[in-house]
């Protein structure tokens, strides 16, 4: 699923030259605070039994609080795909407002 998200979105980086990956500082400042909030949510959800991961279908590397490696990557890769998507829309619709124009 993570592979599909990478394949489905990262081509935008090259075709539309959205330049998300080279703006690492802005990426980190946008993704990491949100990732922390959602990892806490994820931890709470697993601890409360809201959802379960199939142990046979994860690579088996677990971080703090028993959160699988895939879940950490999820909170990096999915938001990265989101940033590429909004920047790709900007590349196609140059006259639209995005809120950070000068």
């Amino acid at each position: 699923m993570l592979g599909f998200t990478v394949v489905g979105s990262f081509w935008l980086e090259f075709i539309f030259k959205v330049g998300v990956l080279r703006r690492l500082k802005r990426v980190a400042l946008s993704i990491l605070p949100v990732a922390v909030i959602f990892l806490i949510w994820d931890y709470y959800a697993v601890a409360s039994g809201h959802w379960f991961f199939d142990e046979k279908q994860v690579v088996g590397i677990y971080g703090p609080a028993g959160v699988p490696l895939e879940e950490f990557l999820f909170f990096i890769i999915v938001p990265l795909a989101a940033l590429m998507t909004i920047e790709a829309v900007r590349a196609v619709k140059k006259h639209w407002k995005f809120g950070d124009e000068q």
Partner: protein
Amino acid sequence: MTYTQLALTMTLVAILFDLYGTRSKIVTRKSFWNAYGIMLFFQLITNWWLTSRGILTYADDAITGMRIAAAPVEDLFFGFAMITMTISLWIYWGKKGVQRN
């Protein structure tokens, strides 16, 4: 709190964060909703994959039971909240002059 309550709460938090926290106001712009529509399409595919193959399972008492593409409807709110907060921050830093281009 159940997943349903958390998902709705975080959706509200994300919208308030965008309007009054970062003041990016992306939820008022068609540029954001256009991008969200694209992402929603792909989320439905990945949700279906993760849920129908049993990679993720959900507790019946934590969700309403309403499902779209095999996954609980709550997942769409979870995704919306995460994506909205991330893009709202991205626009906020851009407006501040952090790596504008």
